[in-house]
């Protein structure tokens, strides 16, 4: 069973190498949110076809089929990404083919239909991101007739909004340059280090002969040592890159990449460019870094913030991390971001402690100390104020007269009210605990399944060497393990989702789907725990179950996502 049908264009460096010269560029391949199972055999056999695939020339390899050959430059590619904007959002989200006439009929028929819970996204390597920037800079530089260093500063100033930059620049060139921290005469005087005699550096007060000095066009001149140290501190300690100003008092001129390269050692230039790259991705709403530790990839996705109540944009990085593009938390389908945030907060903060207290304790009617009943007897004596009262009616114990130990004032109004409040509180707590326990259970089980898999994997290796089973023959275990992880992740969040659902017919369908998936998962999980010697015999059954689990998961997710998109779910909280 293919774990991933995605491929990526391995040689993305070529793309960056001829970034400036070649207008027709190949993007790193478009990967689709795809299920790692075989939804259907035919689908699995197909490569994940990008939506914007054009029948452009020059497709000479397998990889090219998966890559986007676009006649547009990268910048336009970015802005032309799918917009889930309000109003048109339904059309955009629902449009599985984004028909631009690029597909011929057969391609269209063969293309796997995008599920409701899948979103379109692309994964970029650092080289891709660099070349994107380079292309945009080159294009705008050409248009504005500014050197690329200055253009880069201008673009960063407008947060890579080309249209706005060009408009403002054409409107008032001088003002724009000034605001972005550039001088007028940027075109002349390439940056260089000058040896000046009789010069005193304003920073270190050195004035020896042969002092190397540097200044940008603003003419705030300092010795290169000080300049270097200043830049080092900004980059290394403060993590600053795009907005490092000239060290001159009150000067707002931004240091350009060329000047910087001239002054600082290589390792710092690397860090500088890394930071610039970071701001590039941070500046773009459609780009996000993969949150996995040490992962260098960035993901592009067109889902806008305002649509997050209607879609849960799970994306899959090259590093195998699946995360939500909206909030960068690990995949939490089918639960939308707002509810995830609410749920996590609810589980974290101790509002539940308060809930527990109100469900399980009462206050002493005299001194208001919180009291938990610790025995069956209704005769309570407050530890603190020694007040004696009846747990049932909260009245004074002495007033019970002779009917001690048998509260006969049950129907009294105050007593009824107190009991109602108590019951309500208890009910809401129980409801929460119902969902929380199942949520937490799947989280824990996923961990345990993984442990078992690791143990089994070792056993399988052993088995492999003793029984002559080939490596490929034991891969069903890996597939089953993956399926379990993925399904439990989904199940976990179905419980958080269900907690916020208002009850109606839809919730019943949802719960049926949830139940089906859960049963399938528990079945698979049980087989998974069988002793190693039985596993070989269970192979076919396990493979079937794995496929079944994944299919149930897709059904559940698809149904939930569809209703979410159509805004037909009724929640018991506001999606804010």
């Amino acid at each position, binding site marked *: 069973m293919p774990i991933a049908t995605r491929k990526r264009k391995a040689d993305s460096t070529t793309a960056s190498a001829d970034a400036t010269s070649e207008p027709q560029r190949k993007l790193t391949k478009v990967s689709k949110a795809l299920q790692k199972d075989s939804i259907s055999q035919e689908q699995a056999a197909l490569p994940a076809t990008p939506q914007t695939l054009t029948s452009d020339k020059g497709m000479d390899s397998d990889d090219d089929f998966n890559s986007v050959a676009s006649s547009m430059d990268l910048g336009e590619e970015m802005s032309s990404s799918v917009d889930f904007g309000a109003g048109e959002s339904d059309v955009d989200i629902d449009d599985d083919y984004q028909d631009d006439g690029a597909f011929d009929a057969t391609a269209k028929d063969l293309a796997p239909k995008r599920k409701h819970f899948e979103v379109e996204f692309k994964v970029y390597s650092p080289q891709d991101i660099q070349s994107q920037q380079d292309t945009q800079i080159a294009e705008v530089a050409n248009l504005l007739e500014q050197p690329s260093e200055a253009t880069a500063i201008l673009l960063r100033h407008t947060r890579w909004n080309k249209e706005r930059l060009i408009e403002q620049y054409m409107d008032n060139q001088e003002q724009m340059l000034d605001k972005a921290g550039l001088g007028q005469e940027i075109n002349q005087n390439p940056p260089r280090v000058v040896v000046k005699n009789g010069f005193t550096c304003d920073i270190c007060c*050195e004035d020896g002969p042969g002092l190397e000095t540097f200044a940008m066009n603003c003419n705030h001149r*300092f010795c290169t*040592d*000080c300049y270097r140290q*200043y830049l080092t*501190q900004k980059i290394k300690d*403060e993590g600053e890159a795009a907005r490092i100003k000239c*060290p001159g008092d009150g000067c707002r001129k931004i240091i350009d990449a060329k000047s910087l390269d001239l002054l600082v050692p290589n390792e710092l230039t690397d860090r500088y460019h890394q930071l610039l790259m970071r701001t590039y991705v941070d500046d773009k709403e459609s780009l996000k870094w993969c949150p996995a530790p040490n992962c260098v990839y960035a993901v592009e996705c067109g889902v806008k913030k305002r649509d997050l109540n209607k879609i849960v944009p799970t994306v899959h990085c090259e590093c195998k991390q699946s995360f939500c593009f909206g909030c960068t938390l690990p995949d939490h389908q089918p639960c939308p971001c707002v509810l995830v945030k609410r749920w996590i907060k609810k589980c974290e903060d101790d509002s539940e402690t308060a809930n527990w207290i109100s469900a399980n304790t009462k206050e002493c009617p005299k001194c208001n100390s919180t009291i938990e009943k610790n025995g069956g007897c209704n005769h309570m004596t407050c530890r603190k104020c020694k007040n004696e009262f009846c747990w049932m009616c909260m009245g004074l114990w002495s007033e019970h007269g002779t009917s001690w130990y048998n509260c006969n004032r049950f129907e009294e109004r105050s007593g009824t009210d107190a009991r109602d409040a108590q019951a309500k509180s208890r009910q809401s707590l129980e409801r929460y605990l119902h969902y929380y326990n199942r949520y937490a259970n799947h989280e824990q089980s996923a961990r345990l399944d993984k442990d078992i898999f690791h143990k089994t994997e070792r056993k399988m290796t052993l088995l492999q060497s003793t029984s002559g089973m080939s490596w490929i023959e034991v891969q069903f275990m890996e597939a089953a393990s993956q399926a379990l992880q993925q399904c439990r992740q989904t199940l976990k969040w179905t419980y958080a989702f269900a907690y916020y659902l208002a009850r109606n017919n839809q919730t019943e369908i949802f719960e049926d789907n949830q139940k089906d998936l859960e049963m399938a998962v528990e079945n698979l999980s049980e087989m998974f725990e069988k002793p190693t010697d039985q596993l070989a015999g269970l192979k076919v059954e396990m493979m079937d179950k794995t496929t079944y689990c994944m299919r149930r998961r897709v059904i559940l997710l698809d149904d939930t996502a569809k209703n979410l998109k159509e805004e037909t779910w009724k929640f018991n909280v506001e999606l804010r």
Partner: protein
Amino acid sequence: MAGNKRLMKELAENQSTPPPGCKISLENDDDILLWNVTMTAPSDSIYAGGNFKILIKIPKEYPFKPPVLNFKTKVYHPNVTNDENGSMCLGMLRPDEWKPPNKISDVLKLVRTVLAAPQPDDAVEQGIADQYKNNRKEFEKVAKDWVNKYAK
């Protein structure tokens, strides 16, 4: 290191021709990174008559990082924290505003200006800033009380 030559020079300058209203000495003779300043408030300000002890801690990275200022004398002022630190974080004293050519004498001039003319929109003590804006009389009364109580 680069800072040392400059710091020696600054110290010498500040001691021979101190900034207006300031007296500067080292807290310990062998530590050039800890300066002691006694600042006399401008006579036309509400703090007139007050002498404020200010400790200047100079970071090792100076002049690439700004010095840190602490009022050792309690002062009722929207721009000085009302705690044992008496910190001030304004204009060039902010790490992102600080430029290496800025000098300690510039800082002291700034501090004395701010002492005379508080900047409530950039306050560290919001309560005092609100009072300064809305109830100037009460503010001046407390400020003067504090001068008499702590700064004389």
